[in-house]
């Protein structure tokens, strides 16, 4: 029981940044834009969050600045793909490469400098019992990620703005012809995605390892991108997917450390499991001939107004 709760706490830590980044990307993709720069924006958010935490010791300000830095970096992507109609795939990859390099440059004088971890949101007396700790023992971003799942679901499916966003993603020409600004809507979506990726990146120095290390997100931005497809662009499936990915990543380590039958599975296979799961889900979805894959119809296509 104790061990199960301990595993749960580690799983939550591993899943939270992936979930936050993937939620942002989900909104971006629902507007018809494919931003493959999540990893880069996360790194920019991570270094911004680290620097602010290092100098001010205020983790909330650090998260905010991480989000702001992610947002600013997403504007580069937005300008190139939305204003100049550049190829989204290539621009997204470029943003990841840029974010990796920029964060390394900005962080070069911050090696060998630890920071303080973000404290749990609720007072410590609430989390003395192990079960209570598994519920109340986390810091702000964990609860934020859960709330955002509901908020984004509500926004997409129950609000007018969400409907417009989905319309832009599914049929940009129609949305344009009835008077909505496709580019403006997509700008907002891209900026939101950037802020979420930046915040997710800031979780690394604030929640997981209180230090700056180059490329410290180590590919989790790509997992977030895969996760959006895995979840077939649905927020609640995304929640399940993020925790499944987090569980796989964490179980590997507990199994290896604890011995037992699972420890015989090679680590390369563990590392591949989330992606194998994504492929399996894609195959399953595409076999259902009656329904579409739920992918936004205009995903990845630059918007060029017909008139």
């Amino acid at each position: 029981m104790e061990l199960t709760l301990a595993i749960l706490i580690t799983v939550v830590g591993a899943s939270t940044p992936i979930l936050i980044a993937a939620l942002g990307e989900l909104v971006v993709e629902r507007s018809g834009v494919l931003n493959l720069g999540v990893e880069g924006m996360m790194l920019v958010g991570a270094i911004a969050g680290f620097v602010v935490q290092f100098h001010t010791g205020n983790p909330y300000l650090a998260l905010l600045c991480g989000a702001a830095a992610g947002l600013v970096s997403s504007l580069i992507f937005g300008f190139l793909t939305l204003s100049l109609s550049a190829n989204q795939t290539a621009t997204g990859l470029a943003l990841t490469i840029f974010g990796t390099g920029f964060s390394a440059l900005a962080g070069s004088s911050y090696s060998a400098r630890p920071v303080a971890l973000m404290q749990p949101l609720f007072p410590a007396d609430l989390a003395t019992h192990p079960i209570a700790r598994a519920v109340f023992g986390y810091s702000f971003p964990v609860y934020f990620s859960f709330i955002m799942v509901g908020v984004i679901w509500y926004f997409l499916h129950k609000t007018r703005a969400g409907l417009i966003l989905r319309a832009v993603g599914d049929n940009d020409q129609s949305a344009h012809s009835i008077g909505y600004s496709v580019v403006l809507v997509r700008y907002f979506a891209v900026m939101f995605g950037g802020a979420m990726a930046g915040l997710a990146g800031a979780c690394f120095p604030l929640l997981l390892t209180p230090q700056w290390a180059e490329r410290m997100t180590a590919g989790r931005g790509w997992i977030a991108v895969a996760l959006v497809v895995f979840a077939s662009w649905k927020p609640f499936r995304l929640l399940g997917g993020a925790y499944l990915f987090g569980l796989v990543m964490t179980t590997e380590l507990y199994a290896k450390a604890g011995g037992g039958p699972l420890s015989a599975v090679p680590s390369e296979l563990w590392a591949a499991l989330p992606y194998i799961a994504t492929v399996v889900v894609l195959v399953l979805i595409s076999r259902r001939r009656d329904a579409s894959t739920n992918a936004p119809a205009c995903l990845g296509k630059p918007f060029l107004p017909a008139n």
Partner: protein
Amino acid sequence: MTLSRRTFVKVGGAAMALPFLGSRAFAQLEKIKIGFIYVGSINDNGYNYAHNQGRLYVEEQLGDKVETIFVENVPEGPDCERVLRELAQQGCQLIFATSFGFGDSVVKVAAQFPDIAFEHATGYMSGPNIGLYNARFYEGRAVCGTIAGHMSKTGKAGYIGSFPIPEVVMGINALALSGRRINPDFTVKPVYISTWNDPAKEADAARAMIDQGIDIVAQHTDGPAALQVAAERGIVGGFGQGADMSAFAPDTQLTAIIDHWGPRYVASAEAVLAGTWTPGNTWEGLKEDVVQMGPYGAKVPEDVRAAADEVKNGQIDGSFHIFTGPIKDNTGTERVAAGVVMTDAELLSMDWYVEGVEQPA
């Protein structure tokens, strides 16, 4: 243009080298240019940081007589070849390739530039102008293991490894052997994470092991993440790897293994300056000051410090070697007979775990 220039350099270089073939004599020089290539970032607080400190040490010691250039984050593969060639064409007389995986590229490029001295760290392929150098990190592990054997309450240490290569296996075994000299029930649990640099994964691996009963953590990856988790969880302690990491966990780092390449680099640079450089094959450790131990943490009691010092000094004066038989492997088979010391060749190809190490997947 580039091609013809490269061909010219190649042909010219070969022609110039002809009279010296077999003797490998280099001219005495006033000033030399030295190139370094690193596989990672110089800010990794660990392996690559330590190599770069070695470069700075050369500049500090030899002053005007040297000029150094470095290229970091060089991937192992074709890119490395290109970088090596560029360094050669920029006029470097001595080039240090500081990662195991650069080996093939060094062999290729060195053949094209026979009048340049190449040195390859932790490798095994030498040549007429390729020297090899390595450090006996396992000696540091033996000091760490002595401390762990004394201080662990659960008698269990966790060890985060990158990949199961001999270098890492040797370190795990040295920790287990030295810990078991103190506490015969001491065990080491290795977990391989298939990466040199993923701080979040290193931290999670440390959490997974701590949740399952270890109270000492050691790591053979590039950063201090595991040490920070050890501090956060308040276990007995951990060790710095590659560099002194006490800044990250002042009360938790019991000591650190510090890579100190500086003296090695100065020796090679001086040999090239004097025209006496020959390709060597060195494997140096505590004695030559290429491996250093960090300061003991405040938690380490006097008697443990004394025991650790004894192991350290024994390795410096040559009276103690951690891989001295009898050594059994973790299936109970005797691998090294009583009184026999394992040879360097055996150590460099070690692919089995000693008694007390849990067999990893």
